[in-house]
């Protein structure tokens, strides 16, 4: 009778007097849930307060802004950084906070570009910003930008760190590092220079002590000259590295500049290696200091020479290249635009990637002690960046290396290519007042000028020159050292030109940047020549100043 049993229970259930059948109020449960919600609400409020505290405790400024740059929320650090009070922030956009030297529209375009970059992760960039209430007060920040959601809205979360101080420290550190480098270099330079001086002195002694032999004389002199030139090159590299060497860019055909140097360098490399030179047709002009092209080519060729084995080939080429956005993306140093390219490649031993990574670092060298300073490629890199170009390296161990140096195309086609005109050393018959406190240089200058037909009044002291001129000495050009005891070249020029309007002056200096700012030399009728100089260099400079209207 199982069923019957079940049914009697079932009947009880239907009649409904059981515990579960009783009418039940959900009111207490409802109140419990309400209380729980209220607790949760309070917890959220406290949590929000905590987060707000954290938000405002950050030393970095935070700005939450919408996709149009309208500011939605900022933290206390932002208010302090931009000199604002909380209520005002919503009246400004990111544009109001950004320094806009190029105008609001161009700045807006830069911001739009930043915001259009894809990706969910933060991207970091450096910006110059300003205080809206004092727009002339700008400072530098590092902005780390990230997309996110703020309430229901898509926004950017920008974290700003003031890096003005860091920039100052970096600059100071750079200077310090340069000074350290100079110190380290000094030893090497002294050593090299000493060697060269020993060579020079040795040959000179030999010449003085042996009977004059007209057949041997020029070749001895050439050895002396070469030793002196080597020292000169060393100094030049040092100056280029320190970026203290004033550059004198001219619009030039890169093919012509390379053509001159590579002939000379052929000998440097040696007969056992083939040097090929392939100038491109229709090469775009560049605006460069020809000396720098020399330096680049010399360094790259010397590097190639040390990498090649007998039978290998070194090739110099030129080419035109238009860099587009894609290429620029792939090469961090490259900007979009047209470039004239100088390629130096070799079929030598090549380099592994970890070496390629470091070759532009100062003092990085794979060469044996005494053979390289580690400054060559660093100098090349410095020069290229100084000229707003970029350099790429492709190297395969065992196969060879190719350096591609990109110079920005010079677009003012109207300017004459000056370099070609300077190939020969011009001559003249004018009178030149030459002032140089270094006796040997004074003598050298006089000989060089007189050999080109000029008449020369040599003066070892500026006061001596002044006196000579006051006593009625006539001259067409003042060629003076810049740094001299008693009176510098500039002062001498000023005194002399007071009575001679339109006085033509050529300033000579070994190390001018510290002593004089090139831009502040009297412009009209004046020129500048870096010491040491070659005969051609001197004669060209003299002629150029003399021929000025």
């Amino acid at each position, binding site marked *: 009778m199982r*069923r019957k049993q079940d049914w009697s229970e079932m009947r009880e259930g*239907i009649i*409904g007097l059981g515990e*579960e*059948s009783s009418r039940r109020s959900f009111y207490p449960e409802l109140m419990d849930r309400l209380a729980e919600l209220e607790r949760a609400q309070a917890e959220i409020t406290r949590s929000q307060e905590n987060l707000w505290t954290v938000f405002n405790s950050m030393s970095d400024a935070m700005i939450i802004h919408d996709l149009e740059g309208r500011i939605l929320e900022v933290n206390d650090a932002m208010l302090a950084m931009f000199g604002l009070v909380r209520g005002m922030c919503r009246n400004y956009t990111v544009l109001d906070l950004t320094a806009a030297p190029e105008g609001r529209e161009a700045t807006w375009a830069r911001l739009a570009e930043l915001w259009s970059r894809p990706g969910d992760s933060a991207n970091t960039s450096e910006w110059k910003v300003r205080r809206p209430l004092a727009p002339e007060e700008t400072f530098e920040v590092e902005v780390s930008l990230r997309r996110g959601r703020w309430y229901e809205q898509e926004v950017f979360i920008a974290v700003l760190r003031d890096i003005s101080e860091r920039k100052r420290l970096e600059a100071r550190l750079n200077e310090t590092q340069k000074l350290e480098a100079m110190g380290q270099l000094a030893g090497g330079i002294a050593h090299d220079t000493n060697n060269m001086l020993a060579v020079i002195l040795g040959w000179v002694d030999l010449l003085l002590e042996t009977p004059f032999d007209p057949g041997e004389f020029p070749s001895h002199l050439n050895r002396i000259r070469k030793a002196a030139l080597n020292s000169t090159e060393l100094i030049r590299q040092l100056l280029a590295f320190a970026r203290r060497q004033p550059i004198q860019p001219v619009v030039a055909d890169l093919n012509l500049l390379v053509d001159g140097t590579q002939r000379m360098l052929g000998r440097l490399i040696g007969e056992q290696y083939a040097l090929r030179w392939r100038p491109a047709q229709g090469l775009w002009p560049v605006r460069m200091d020809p000396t720098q092209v020399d330096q680049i080519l010399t360094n790259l060729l010397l590097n190639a020479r040390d990498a090649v084995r007998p039978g290998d080939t070194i090739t110099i080429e030129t080419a035109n290249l238009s860099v587009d956005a894609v290429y620029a993306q792939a090469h961090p140093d490259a900007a979009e635009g047209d470039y004239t390219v100088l390629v130096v490649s070799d079929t030598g031993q090549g380099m592994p990637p970890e070496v390629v990574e470091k070759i532009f670092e100062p003092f990085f060298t794979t060469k044996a002690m005494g053979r390289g300073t580690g400054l060559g490629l660093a100098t090349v890199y410095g020069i290229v960046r100084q000229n707003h170009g970029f350099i790429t390296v492709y190297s395969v161990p065992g196969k060879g290396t190719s350096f591609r140096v990109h110079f920005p195309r010079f677009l003012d086609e109207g300017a004459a290519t000056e370099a070609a005109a300077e190939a020969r050393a011009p001559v003249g018959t004018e009178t030149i007042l030459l002032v140089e406190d270094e006796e040997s240089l004074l003598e050298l200058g006089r000989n060089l000028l007189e050999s080109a037909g000029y008449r020369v009044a040599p003066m070892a002291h500026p006061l001596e020159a002044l006196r000579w001129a006051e006593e009625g000495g006539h001259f067409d050009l003042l060629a003076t050292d810049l740094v001299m005891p008693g009176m510098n070249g500039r002062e001498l020029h000023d005194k002399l030109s007071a009575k001679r309007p339109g006085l033509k002056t050529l300033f000579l200096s070994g190390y001018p940047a510290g002593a004089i700012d090139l831009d502040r030399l009297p412009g009209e009728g004046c020129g500048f020549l870096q010491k040491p100089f070659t005969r051609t260099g001197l004669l060209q400079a003299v002629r150029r100043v003399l021929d000025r209207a």
Partner: protein
Amino acid sequence: MESPALEELRKFVAPEFIFGRDARKLVARYARKLGGKRIFLVSDPGVHAAGWAQEALDLLVAEGLIVTLFLGVSPNPRDGEVMEGAAAFRESGSDLVVAVGGGSAMDCAKGIGIVAQNRGSILDYEGVDQVPEPMPPLICIPTTGGTSADVSQFAIINNTSEKVKIAIISKAVVPDVALIDPCTLVTMSPYLTACTGIDALVHAIEAFVSNAQSPITDLHALEAIRLISDNLRASVAAPGDLELRGRIMLASLQAGLAFSNASLGCVHAMAHSLGGFLDLPHGECNALILPHVMAYNLPAAGDRFRRIGEAMGLPLDGLGEKNCGRALVDGVLELRRSCGIHGGLGDRGVKAADLPGLAEKAIEDPCNATNPRPPTRGDLEALYAEAL
């Protein structure tokens, strides 16, 4: 058998209800008062075609409420329909259910409410007091005179995989408000009027002879029997007579109050099994089975059946128990015939081979628990055979 009144604790459950012409038009006010903002309106295509669902929808919208109309209800509402309705309820963010229609729409609405709040499957809640949490507020507007789902604690859902109707019995499925409006009955066909009327009669008779009857349920049961006996024939013959419709609607309400609290018996147990098996109208199933179960139950409740006969107005004076019972069964058969319900189960497609299976399922039905004579599976199979 006279029950020992007052010796047993008894409970009487009923919703708030409004009875009378145009009661249905209060739907929007009640929906708002019960806190509804987004209303889930459950009806079936037939009732929608008759215009009753649209009228309710218009009234709710005019009150500023947002309405989702759900018409995926078939006769003998299925478990799958309940689950779809519950998903639509949650998806629409609804917070109150209005059912407009017969037992199908109202039972489906109850199922939707249960699942919307308690999750799981509707079949999880089969049996007595298995619904743990109350469902969203429910307003019922019945459009048939018999089902009484609008006042009952019952919801009957078709378990389609088992081909059987399950009964959910819980205080939780008593509607919050029933708006009982005789006007809605005028769109019923004469045959549907007859079937639902006999359904109400079966509710009243089974409640009256139930072993869980009580003085209060007796009152309503006898009054329902009297009203149906006196008015059903006339109402079937004059479908447009609102006065007659009102009496049948009142009978249905009273029968519902009775059986909701006293429960039912073997007629419903067998009809649930049959309805799940053949998808026949519930009222029609009841009508076909009732006389046979009455005859089976006579020995267990002779006195009560005599009072039923008296309420039906049958001339029983001087008849012995046996003859009284025969007269009662004849009276019911006559009423059935005169309302237009003819034939037996065989005419509806039931075969002798189906009977063991039908009995197997029917014996599991909780309605058996309150039948005055505890049935066996064999009893039920024999009763199906008689009804063939």
